[in-house]
Protein backbone atom coordinates (compact mmCIF):
# COMPACT_ATOMS: atom_id res chain seq x y z
CA UNK A 1 0.00 0.00 0.00
CA UNK A 2 1.39 3.36 -1.00
CA UNK A 3 2.38 5.64 1.91
CA UNK A 4 2.31 2.62 4.23
CA UNK A 5 4.66 -0.08 2.94
CA UNK A 6 7.66 2.20 2.35
CA UNK A 7 7.33 3.51 5.91
CA UNK A 8 7.70 0.00 7.31
CA UNK A 9 11.01 -0.69 5.53
CA UNK A 10 13.06 -2.44 8.20
CA UNK A 11 16.44 -1.44 6.73
CA UNK A 12 15.49 2.24 6.64
CA UNK A 13 14.10 2.12 10.18
CA UNK A 14 17.33 0.51 11.32
CA UNK A 15 19.37 3.13 9.49
CA UNK A 16 17.53 5.96 11.22
CA UNK A 17 17.92 4.26 14.59
CA UNK A 18 21.67 4.04 13.95
CA UNK A 19 21.66 7.77 13.26
CA UNK A 20 19.84 8.31 16.58
CA UNK A 21 22.54 6.23 18.27
CA UNK A 22 25.27 8.38 16.68
CA UNK A 23 23.52 11.60 17.67
CA UNK A 24 22.65 10.92 21.28
CA UNK A 25 25.23 11.77 23.97
CA UNK A 26 23.18 11.71 27.16
CA UNK A 27 19.80 10.56 28.54
CA UNK A 28 16.59 12.13 27.23
CA UNK A 29 12.99 11.45 28.17
CA UNK A 30 10.36 12.15 25.57
CA UNK A 31 6.64 11.55 25.43
CA UNK A 32 4.59 10.41 22.48
CA UNK A 33 1.28 12.07 23.15
CA UNK A 34 -0.83 9.81 20.94
CA UNK A 35 -2.09 6.34 21.82
CA UNK A 36 -1.86 5.27 18.17
CA UNK A 37 1.86 5.93 18.35
CA UNK A 38 2.15 4.11 21.70
CA UNK A 39 0.55 1.09 20.05
CA UNK A 40 2.92 1.24 17.05
CA UNK A 41 6.00 1.74 19.26
CA UNK A 42 5.24 -1.26 21.46
CA UNK A 43 4.00 -3.42 18.57
CA UNK A 44 7.10 -2.89 16.43
CA UNK A 45 9.39 -3.00 19.47
CA UNK A 46 10.80 0.43 18.64
CA UNK A 47 11.38 1.17 22.33
CA UNK A 48 13.62 -1.94 22.49
CA UNK A 49 15.68 -0.90 19.46
CA UNK A 50 16.46 2.60 20.69
CA UNK A 51 19.72 3.37 22.45
CA UNK A 52 19.35 3.13 26.25
CA UNK A 53 19.74 6.90 26.63
CA UNK A 54 16.27 7.45 25.18
CA UNK A 55 13.22 6.77 27.28
CA UNK A 56 9.79 7.01 25.75
CA UNK A 57 6.92 7.70 28.11
CA UNK A 58 3.38 7.20 26.94
CA UNK A 59 0.97 10.09 26.86
CA UNK A 60 -2.76 10.51 27.45
CA UNK A 61 -3.67 10.60 23.76
CA UNK A 62 -6.20 7.81 23.67
CA UNK A 63 -9.73 9.22 23.62
CA UNK A 64 -11.28 5.97 24.80
CA UNK A 65 -8.93 5.97 27.81
CA UNK A 66 -9.56 9.52 28.95
CA UNK A 67 -13.34 9.69 28.52
CA UNK A 68 -14.48 10.26 32.10
CA UNK A 69 -16.41 7.61 33.95
CA UNK A 70 -19.51 9.76 34.42
CA UNK A 71 -19.75 10.32 30.66
CA UNK A 72 -19.79 6.53 30.23
CA UNK A 73 -22.47 6.27 32.92
CA UNK A 74 -24.44 8.95 31.05
CA UNK A 75 -24.04 6.97 27.82
CA UNK A 76 -25.30 3.84 29.61
CA UNK A 77 -28.31 5.72 30.98
CA UNK A 78 -29.22 7.09 27.55
CA UNK A 79 -28.59 3.80 25.74
CA UNK A 80 -30.97 2.03 28.13
CA UNK A 81 -33.93 4.17 26.98
CA UNK A 82 -36.35 1.96 25.03
CA UNK A 83 -36.81 4.41 22.14
CA UNK A 84 -33.10 5.19 21.68
CA UNK A 85 -30.68 3.89 19.06
CA UNK A 86 -27.28 4.54 20.63
CA UNK A 87 -24.39 4.77 18.17
CA UNK A 88 -20.72 4.65 19.06
CA UNK A 89 -17.26 3.98 17.67
CA UNK A 90 -16.51 0.31 18.37
CA UNK A 91 -13.86 0.68 21.07
CA UNK A 92 -16.23 2.40 23.50
CA UNK A 93 -18.49 -0.62 23.88
CA UNK A 94 -16.27 -2.49 26.35
CA UNK A 95 -15.20 0.48 28.45
CA UNK A 96 -16.48 -0.18 31.96
CA UNK A 97 -18.66 2.45 33.55
CA UNK A 98 -19.35 2.40 37.30
CA UNK A 99 -21.41 -0.77 36.99
CA UNK A 100 -21.47 -2.21 33.50
CA UNK A 101 -20.60 -1.37 29.88
CA UNK A 102 -22.42 -0.65 26.61
CA UNK A 103 -22.08 -4.30 25.58
CA UNK A 104 -24.16 -5.39 28.55
CA UNK A 105 -26.79 -2.74 27.75
CA UNK A 106 -26.95 -4.30 24.29
CA UNK A 107 -27.15 -7.80 25.75
CA UNK A 108 -30.11 -6.66 27.86
CA UNK A 109 -31.98 -5.55 24.75
CA UNK A 110 -30.72 -2.00 24.31
CA UNK A 111 -30.29 -0.87 20.72
CA UNK A 112 -26.54 -0.11 20.72
CA UNK A 113 -24.82 0.05 17.36
CA UNK A 114 -21.24 0.44 16.21
CA UNK A 115 -20.80 2.95 13.41
CA UNK A 116 -17.76 3.61 11.27
CA UNK A 117 -18.56 7.28 10.66
CA UNK A 118 -20.88 9.68 12.51
CA UNK A 119 -22.65 10.22 9.18
CA UNK A 120 -23.86 6.61 9.51
CA UNK A 121 -25.65 7.70 12.71
CA UNK A 122 -27.28 10.61 10.86
CA UNK A 123 -28.47 8.16 8.19
CA UNK A 124 -29.95 5.96 10.94
CA UNK A 125 -31.87 8.97 12.28
CA UNK A 126 -33.28 9.59 8.79
CA UNK A 127 -34.32 5.95 8.43
CA UNK A 128 -35.87 5.73 11.93
CA UNK A 129 -38.01 8.85 12.45
CA UNK A 130 -39.86 7.23 15.39
CA UNK A 131 -36.58 6.61 17.30
CA UNK A 132 -34.13 8.95 19.01
CA UNK A 133 -30.66 8.42 17.55
CA UNK A 134 -27.77 9.42 19.83
CA UNK A 135 -24.14 9.44 18.76
CA UNK A 136 -21.33 9.16 21.35
CA UNK A 137 -19.06 11.94 20.08
CA UNK A 138 -15.73 11.23 21.73
CA UNK A 139 -12.23 11.99 20.61
CA UNK A 140 -9.42 14.42 20.16
CA UNK A 141 -9.10 16.98 17.39
CA UNK A 142 -8.97 14.15 14.82
CA UNK A 143 -12.58 13.05 15.20
CA UNK A 144 -13.94 16.57 15.75
CA UNK A 145 -14.36 17.40 12.02
CA UNK A 146 -16.44 14.26 11.52
CA UNK A 147 -18.41 14.70 14.72
CA UNK A 148 -19.36 18.34 14.08
CA UNK A 149 -20.34 17.48 10.52
CA UNK A 150 -22.94 15.05 11.87
CA UNK A 151 -24.59 17.96 13.71
CA UNK A 152 -24.38 20.31 10.72
CA UNK A 153 -25.80 17.61 8.46
CA UNK A 154 -28.65 16.78 10.89
CA UNK A 155 -29.46 20.50 11.05
CA UNK A 156 -29.42 20.79 7.25
CA UNK A 157 -31.75 17.80 6.97
CA UNK A 158 -34.07 19.24 9.65
CA UNK A 159 -33.77 16.12 11.81
CA UNK A 160 -35.49 16.35 15.21
CA UNK A 161 -34.43 12.90 16.42
CA UNK A 162 -30.63 13.22 16.34
CA UNK A 163 -28.32 14.31 19.14
CA UNK A 164 -24.73 13.76 20.25
CA UNK A 165 -23.23 13.02 23.66
CA UNK A 166 -20.02 15.06 23.59
CA UNK A 167 -16.78 14.14 25.32
CA UNK A 168 -14.20 15.98 23.29
CA UNK A 169 -10.66 16.68 24.45
CA UNK A 170 -7.81 18.73 23.00
CA UNK A 171 -4.08 18.04 23.00
CA UNK A 172 -2.47 21.45 23.77
CA UNK A 173 -4.10 21.90 27.22
CA UNK A 174 -3.07 18.33 28.12
CA UNK A 175 0.54 19.08 27.22
CA UNK A 176 0.33 22.26 29.25
CA UNK A 177 -0.98 20.26 32.25
CA UNK A 178 1.75 17.61 31.94
CA UNK A 179 4.53 20.20 31.69
CA UNK A 180 3.11 22.23 34.58
CA UNK A 181 3.21 19.25 36.95
CA UNK A 182 6.03 19.40 39.55
CA UNK A 183 6.69 15.69 38.80
CA UNK A 184 7.17 16.22 35.08
CA UNK A 185 10.09 14.32 33.52
CA UNK A 186 9.31 14.95 29.86
CA UNK A 187 11.99 16.87 27.95
CA UNK A 188 10.59 16.62 24.44
CA UNK A 189 7.26 15.82 22.79
CA UNK A 190 6.31 13.78 19.75
CA UNK A 191 3.12 15.53 18.64
CA UNK A 192 0.20 13.54 17.25
CA UNK A 193 0.41 13.69 13.46
CA UNK A 194 -3.27 13.46 12.67
CA UNK A 195 -4.29 15.96 15.34
CA UNK A 196 -1.90 18.33 13.58
CA UNK A 197 -3.25 17.36 10.15
CA UNK A 198 -6.55 18.89 11.28
CA UNK A 199 -5.36 21.70 13.54
CA UNK A 200 -1.96 22.51 12.05
CA UNK A 201 0.76 23.16 14.61
CA UNK A 202 0.38 26.90 15.18
CA UNK A 203 -0.94 26.21 18.72
CA UNK A 204 2.40 24.73 19.86
CA UNK A 205 5.06 27.47 19.50
CA UNK A 206 3.70 29.34 22.57
CA UNK A 207 3.96 26.10 24.61
CA UNK A 208 7.48 25.45 23.31
CA UNK A 209 8.46 28.93 24.35
CA UNK A 210 6.77 28.86 27.73
CA UNK A 211 8.23 25.50 28.80
CA UNK A 212 11.46 25.69 26.79
CA UNK A 213 11.13 22.21 25.30
CA UNK A 214 11.18 21.00 21.68
CA UNK A 215 8.26 19.27 19.96
CA UNK A 216 8.15 17.26 16.74
CA UNK A 217 5.04 16.57 14.67
CA UNK A 218 5.23 12.80 14.12
CA UNK A 219 3.37 10.24 12.00
CA UNK A 220 2.33 6.69 12.80
CA UNK A 221 4.36 4.23 10.76
CA UNK A 222 7.62 2.88 12.25
CA UNK A 223 9.75 5.03 9.94
CA UNK A 224 7.70 8.13 10.83
CA UNK A 225 8.16 7.44 14.52
CA UNK A 226 11.93 6.93 14.40
CA UNK A 227 12.24 10.03 12.22
CA UNK A 228 10.29 12.01 14.84
CA UNK A 229 12.54 10.65 17.59
CA UNK A 230 15.67 11.47 15.56
CA UNK A 231 14.54 15.06 15.02
CA UNK A 232 13.67 15.43 18.70
CA UNK A 233 17.10 14.08 19.71
CA UNK A 234 18.82 16.43 17.25
CA UNK A 235 16.95 19.40 18.73
CA UNK A 236 17.62 18.31 22.32
CA UNK A 237 21.32 17.69 21.72
CA UNK A 238 21.69 21.06 19.98
CA UNK A 239 19.74 22.81 22.74
CA UNK A 240 17.26 24.15 20.19
CA UNK A 241 13.67 24.68 21.20
CA UNK A 242 11.19 24.79 18.33
CA UNK A 243 8.38 22.85 16.71
CA UNK A 244 9.70 20.62 13.91
CA UNK A 245 7.58 18.73 11.42
CA UNK A 246 8.57 15.12 10.72
CA UNK A 247 5.25 14.37 9.02
CA UNK A 248 5.23 16.97 6.28
CA UNK A 249 3.51 14.74 3.73
CA UNK A 250 0.29 15.04 5.74
CA UNK A 251 0.69 18.10 7.99
CA UNK A 252 1.01 21.82 7.29
CA UNK A 253 1.52 24.63 9.79
CA UNK A 254 -1.99 26.01 9.18
CA UNK A 255 -3.79 22.66 9.14
CA UNK A 256 -7.18 22.05 7.61
CA UNK A 257 -8.88 25.45 7.64
CA UNK A 258 -12.39 24.31 6.53
CA UNK A 259 -12.40 21.74 9.34
CA UNK A 260 -11.23 24.27 11.94
CA UNK A 261 -14.02 26.63 10.82
CA UNK A 262 -16.65 23.91 11.17
CA UNK A 263 -15.35 22.95 14.62
CA UNK A 264 -15.46 26.58 15.78
CA UNK A 265 -18.97 26.97 14.46
CA UNK A 266 -20.35 23.99 16.39
CA UNK A 267 -18.04 23.62 19.40
CA UNK A 268 -16.74 25.97 22.07
CA UNK A 269 -13.89 25.37 24.50
CA UNK A 270 -14.87 24.09 27.94
CA UNK A 271 -13.32 22.65 31.11
CA UNK A 272 -13.14 18.88 30.79
CA UNK A 273 -12.45 16.07 33.22
CA UNK A 274 -9.97 13.46 31.92
CA UNK A 275 -10.41 9.93 33.19
CA UNK A 276 -7.65 9.13 35.66
CA UNK A 277 -6.21 12.64 35.53
CA UNK A 278 -9.00 14.96 36.62
CA UNK A 279 -10.14 18.36 35.50
CA UNK A 280 -7.97 20.22 33.00
CA UNK A 281 -9.14 23.79 32.42
CA UNK A 282 -10.39 24.60 28.91
CA UNK A 283 -9.18 21.22 27.70
CA UNK A 284 -12.33 20.13 25.94
CA UNK A 285 -14.96 21.05 23.43
CA UNK A 286 -18.69 21.10 23.95
CA UNK A 287 -21.63 22.10 21.79
CA UNK A 288 -22.34 25.81 21.55
CA UNK A 289 -25.72 26.82 23.04
CA UNK A 290 -27.06 27.46 19.51
CA UNK A 291 -26.90 23.70 19.03
CA UNK A 292 -28.71 22.78 22.29
CA UNK A 293 -31.33 20.79 20.41
CA UNK A 294 -28.56 18.37 19.34
CA UNK A 295 -27.15 18.06 22.86
CA UNK A 296 -27.97 14.60 24.22
CA UNK A 297 -27.04 15.55 27.81
CA UNK A 298 -29.80 18.16 27.77
CA UNK A 299 -32.31 16.10 25.80
CA UNK A 300 -32.06 13.13 28.17
CA UNK A 301 -31.49 15.08 31.35
CA UNK A 302 -28.39 13.16 32.47
CA UNK A 303 -26.28 16.21 33.31
CA UNK A 304 -26.20 15.48 37.06
CA UNK A 305 -24.75 11.92 36.93
CA UNK A 306 -21.50 11.57 38.98
CA UNK A 307 -19.13 8.58 39.34
CA UNK A 308 -16.17 7.16 41.33
CA UNK A 309 -13.07 5.34 39.92
CA UNK A 310 -11.68 1.92 40.93
CA UNK A 311 -9.02 2.54 43.62
CA UNK A 312 -6.65 -0.15 42.22
CA UNK A 313 -6.18 1.50 38.86
CA UNK A 314 -3.19 3.81 38.36
CA UNK A 315 -4.12 4.69 34.77
CA UNK A 316 -4.06 8.38 35.67
CA UNK A 317 -0.35 8.26 36.50
CA UNK A 318 0.33 6.16 33.41
CA UNK A 319 -1.49 8.69 31.23
CA UNK A 320 0.68 11.47 32.64
CA UNK A 321 3.90 9.57 31.93
CA UNK A 322 4.70 9.09 35.63
CA UNK A 323 4.30 5.30 35.70
CA UNK A 324 4.38 2.36 33.27
CA UNK A 325 1.72 -0.41 33.09
CA UNK A 326 4.07 -2.93 34.75
CA UNK A 327 4.07 -0.69 37.85
CA UNK A 328 0.37 -1.46 38.40
CA UNK A 329 -0.27 -4.28 40.90
CA UNK A 330 -3.44 -5.27 39.04
CA UNK A 331 -1.76 -5.50 35.61
CA UNK A 332 -2.38 -8.95 34.10
CA UNK A 333 -3.98 -10.12 37.36
CA UNK A 334 -7.24 -8.43 38.37
CA UNK A 335 -7.01 -6.42 35.14
CA UNK A 336 -6.80 -7.99 31.66
CA UNK A 337 -8.25 -6.98 28.27
CA UNK A 338 -11.09 -9.49 28.87
CA UNK A 339 -11.86 -8.02 32.30
CA UNK A 340 -10.48 -4.48 32.21
CA UNK A 341 -10.49 -2.39 35.39
CA UNK A 342 -9.42 0.79 33.68
CA UNK A 343 -9.86 2.28 30.25
CA UNK A 344 -6.15 2.03 29.34
CA UNK A 345 -6.64 -1.75 29.30
CA UNK A 346 -9.71 -1.56 27.05
CA UNK A 347 -8.65 0.33 23.99
CA UNK A 348 -5.97 -1.16 21.77
CA UNK A 349 -4.43 2.31 21.87
CA UNK A 350 -4.25 2.24 25.65
CA UNK A 351 -0.79 1.71 27.13
CA UNK A 352 -1.88 -1.17 29.41
CA UNK A 353 -3.51 -3.08 26.53
CA UNK A 354 -0.47 -2.57 24.28
CA UNK A 355 1.89 -3.84 27.02
CA UNK A 356 -0.40 -6.80 27.74
CA UNK A 357 -0.53 -7.81 24.09
CA UNK A 358 3.11 -7.30 23.13
CA UNK A 359 5.08 -7.45 26.36
CA UNK A 360 2.97 -9.87 28.47
Amino acid at each position, binding site marked *: *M*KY*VTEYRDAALVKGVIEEIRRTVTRPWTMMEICGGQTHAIVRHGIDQLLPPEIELVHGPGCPVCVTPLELIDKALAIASHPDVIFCSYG*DMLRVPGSGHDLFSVKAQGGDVRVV*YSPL*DAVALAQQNPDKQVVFFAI*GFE*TTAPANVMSVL*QAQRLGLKNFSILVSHVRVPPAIQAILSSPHNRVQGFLLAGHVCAVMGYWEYPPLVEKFNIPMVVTGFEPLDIVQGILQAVQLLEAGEVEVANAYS*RAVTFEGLKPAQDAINKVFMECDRKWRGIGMIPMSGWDLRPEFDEFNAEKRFDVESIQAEESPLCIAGQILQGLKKPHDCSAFGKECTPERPLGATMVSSEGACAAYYKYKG
Partner: protein
Amino acid sequence: MCLGVPGKIVEIYERGGLKMAKVDFGGIFREACLDYVPDAKVGEYCIIHVGFAISVVSESEAMETLDLLKQISNIEEELGG
Protein backbone atom coordinates in the same frame (compact mmCIF):
# COMPACT_ATOMS: atom_id res chain seq x y z
CA MET B 1 -10.56 4.17 16.42
CA CYS B 2 -8.02 6.92 16.31
CA LEU B 3 -5.86 5.70 13.46
CA GLY B 4 -6.16 7.49 10.15
CA VAL B 5 -5.22 5.53 7.05
CA PRO B 6 -4.05 6.72 3.62
CA GLY B 7 -6.29 5.75 0.72
CA LYS B 8 -6.55 6.64 -2.96
CA ILE B 9 -9.56 8.55 -4.28
CA VAL B 10 -11.06 6.60 -7.17
CA GLU B 11 -14.38 8.41 -7.62
CA ILE B 12 -15.91 11.68 -6.42
CA TYR B 13 -19.66 12.34 -6.18
CA GLU B 14 -22.21 14.35 -4.23
CA ARG B 15 -24.64 12.91 -1.71
CA GLY B 16 -27.02 14.73 0.64
CA GLY B 17 -25.20 18.01 -0.03
CA LEU B 18 -21.80 16.54 0.90
CA LYS B 19 -18.80 15.90 -1.32
CA MET B 20 -18.16 12.17 -1.06
CA ALA B 21 -15.63 9.79 -2.54
CA LYS B 22 -14.99 6.12 -3.10
CA VAL B 23 -11.56 5.44 -1.60
CA ASP B 24 -9.26 2.49 -2.29
CA PHE B 25 -7.28 1.17 0.70
CA GLY B 26 -5.07 -1.37 -1.07
CA GLY B 27 -8.04 -3.17 -2.63
CA ILE B 28 -10.62 -2.51 0.09
CA PHE B 29 -13.08 0.21 -0.89
CA ARG B 30 -14.86 2.56 1.50
CA GLU B 31 -16.79 5.77 1.28
CA ALA B 32 -15.35 8.98 2.72
CA CYS B 33 -16.46 12.58 2.99
CA LEU B 34 -14.25 15.11 1.17
CA ASP B 35 -15.99 18.27 2.43
CA TYR B 36 -12.90 19.43 4.33
CA VAL B 37 -10.50 18.85 1.41
CA PRO B 38 -12.51 20.47 -1.40
CA ASP B 39 -9.55 20.54 -3.83
CA ALA B 40 -8.78 16.82 -3.61
CA LYS B 41 -8.83 15.05 -6.96
CA VAL B 42 -9.29 11.52 -8.25
CA GLY B 43 -5.96 9.70 -8.07
CA GLU B 44 -4.73 11.64 -5.03
CA TYR B 45 -4.18 10.05 -1.63
CA CYS B 46 -5.96 11.28 1.48
CA ILE B 47 -5.66 10.36 5.14
CA ILE B 48 -9.11 9.05 6.04
CA HIS B 49 -10.26 9.12 9.63
CA VAL B 50 -13.71 7.95 10.80
CA GLY B 51 -15.05 8.41 7.28
CA PHE B 52 -13.58 11.87 6.65
CA ALA B 53 -10.56 12.99 4.68
CA ILE B 54 -8.41 15.06 7.06
CA SER B 55 -5.40 15.59 4.79
CA VAL B 56 -4.34 15.28 1.16
CA VAL B 57 -0.99 13.50 1.16
CA SER B 58 1.71 15.58 -0.51
CA GLU B 59 3.64 13.42 -2.96
CA SER B 60 6.57 15.85 -3.17
CA GLU B 61 6.96 16.13 0.61
CA ALA B 62 6.79 12.34 0.90
CA MET B 63 9.55 11.91 -1.71
CA GLU B 64 11.74 14.52 -0.08
CA THR B 65 11.49 12.90 3.35
CA LEU B 66 12.14 9.41 2.02
CA ASP B 67 15.19 10.61 0.08
CA LEU B 68 16.55 12.24 3.20
CA LEU B 69 16.02 9.13 5.30
CA LYS B 70 17.57 6.92 2.60
CA GLN B 71 20.60 9.22 2.63
CA ILE B 72 20.92 8.84 6.37
CA SER B 73 20.75 5.05 6.03
CA ASN B 74 23.29 4.97 3.16
CA ILE B 75 25.80 6.94 5.17
CA GLU B 76 25.42 4.17 7.70
CA GLU B 77 26.28 1.51 5.06
CA GLU B 78 29.35 3.44 3.93
CA LEU B 79 30.57 3.48 7.50
CA GLY B 80 30.26 -0.30 7.48
CA GLY B 81 27.30 -0.52 9.90
